[in-house]
């Protein structure tokens, strides 16, 4: 797990980066850092600028302003080749030569990266995506999930310091998406820095050490749990068999309980500073008032809640 305090060297450092296409702003004033070995999620709605950010950091397009360091190399036109030697990008569409076999596709890219012992490297890459037995198949004959795995094998050929995965599970069925998740987890375990753009919030929550939410500008950045804590107050949800006669009398003044509201006839939501400390006091209070308790649970907000909240706030900001 990445620790921002102890990581001295950074895989990516982005400082006030902006990209404009004429009058259209793709992303604006984006700054963040990604540590070596971190899995960094980059979330945002369609058109938020995620892919353009990846392309900019991958030296495919040049920024309009700002600066960045990618795999230890300053993002400048003259450093394009050196940066591309150290990174790999897996675009949303696999982009394989459909008439060529899996092995022929990988062989071409192994040569382009000038890898030593290309045959061995291709075999290793195919093994890591479990496609050793499909090496001779034309890529055009593979399913979308398998093509995505070939694209991932291609991205692994050069043993990149930073791997950019742009919507790697887009359009895949759940089983194929799970296979890709397992591969990403395996890469994380091997210490590869991964920059993952995705629409799938459960994917980001499962795989990423930290996430950033982009909507042309950077909305927020942090660990998923920290973002939840930052945006939502912690709550306990109490479900009873029967309605309390005087809920205010039960909940008001309990240690750790900052407020309460009714959420249906027999359900109460309590705002608490620390659910672990507040729950025993709440239980005791309910029992002392002869309440029949069905459940007492901490309410969990998902990354999706965080995402929707941030986007709603932005929409509200635009409207007002």
């Amino acid at each position, binding site marked *: 797990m990445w620790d921002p305090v102890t990581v001295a060297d950074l895989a990516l450092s982005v400082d006030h980066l902006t990209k404009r296409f004429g009058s259209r702003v793709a992303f604006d004033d984006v700054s963040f850092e990604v540590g070596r070995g971190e899995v960094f999620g980059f979330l945002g709605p369609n058109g938020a600028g995620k892919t353009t950010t990846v392309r900019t950091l991958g030296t495919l397009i040049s920024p309009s302003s700002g600066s960045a360091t990618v795999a230890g190399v300053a993002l400048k036109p003259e450093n394009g080749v050196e940066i591309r030697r150290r990174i790999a990008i897996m675009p949303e569409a696999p982009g394989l030569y459909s008439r060529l076999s899996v092995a022929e596709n990988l062989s*071409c890219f192994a*040569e382009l*990266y000038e890898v030593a012992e290309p045959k061995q490297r291709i075999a290793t890459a195919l093994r890591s995506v479990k496609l050793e037995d499909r090496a001779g198949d034309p890529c055009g004959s593979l399913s979308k999930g398998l093509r995505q795995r070939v694209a991932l094998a291609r991205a692994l050929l050069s043993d990149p310091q930073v791997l950019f995965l742009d919507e790697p599970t887009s359009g895949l069925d759940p089983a194929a998406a799970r296979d890709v998740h397992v591969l990403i987890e395996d890469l994380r375990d091997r210490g590869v820095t991964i920059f993952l753009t995705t629409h799938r919030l459960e994917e980001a929550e499962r795989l990423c050490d930290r996430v950033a939410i982009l909507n042309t500008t950077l909305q927020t950045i942090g660990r998923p749990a920290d973002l939840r804590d930052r945006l939502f107050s912690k709550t306990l949800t109490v479900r009873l068999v029967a309605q309390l006669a005087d809920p205010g009398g039960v909940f008001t003044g309990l240690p750790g309980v900052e407020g309460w509201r009714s959420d249906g006839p027999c359900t109460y939501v309590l705002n608490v500073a620390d659910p672990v400390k507040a729950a025993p006091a709440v239980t005791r209070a309910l029992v002392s008032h002869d309440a029949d308790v069905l459940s007492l649970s901490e309410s969990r907000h998902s990354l999706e809640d965080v995402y929707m909240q941030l986007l709603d706030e932005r929409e509200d900001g635009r409207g007002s």
Partner: protein
Amino acid sequence: MNTGRRRVAAVFHKELREYRHNGNIIVAMTIFPLVFIIQPLVQVFTLSSKAAIPLRHEHSLLYMLAVPVLVPATLASYAVVGERLQGTLEPLLSTPLRSRELLLGKALAAFVPSVILSYVIFGVFIAVVELFAAHPVASAMVRGPDLLAQLVFTPLLSVWSIWVGIAISSRCSDPRTSGQLAMLASLPVVAVTTLIALNVIPPELKVALGFGAGLLVLIRLGGRFAASLFDRERLITNTK
């Protein structure tokens, strides 16, 4: 700046593999040479010995110079637009490959088969004429200077045609349009060789040297022009 030979070779070999698997390219590469060999051969076989006299004033072999113009134009016109169409341009440009290495690899992959094919077609034509045409007709058609012109101008015309094809391919988003425009752009050069073949432009040493020098200049400018049109950002984002 260095040019990565291994990367150029990678593009070259990849292109050749794609040609081999792509029936459309093989058909396109076959049609033009067939058109340019069948019609003259039919004509040669129907000529009597008397026809040798007017033939001495023509340079029929130079018609064949259209092959090294049209075949590489077909291949090169698919070079960049084909990658965009397949969605392979972005992965390709994400590697350490420089733009000029990509273009060089593509150009070589169009050049080598085109020149080999042109020489083979030319050789077949000469062999058939020498073996089966009436002797006076054969000796009127197959002349040393024309052979030399064919050998020298075939690679020069191919390179020029390739740069034109790649330049057009870099600006087009549709392969059919790209192919048609490349053909159209090749026609002026074919017209010049045809005028020489018909003796309208006298095939003298001065003309050959001038034509050769002009082609060398055009090749130099064409290469730069093609490279300048290959704009990574525009090709990736479809902007500008």
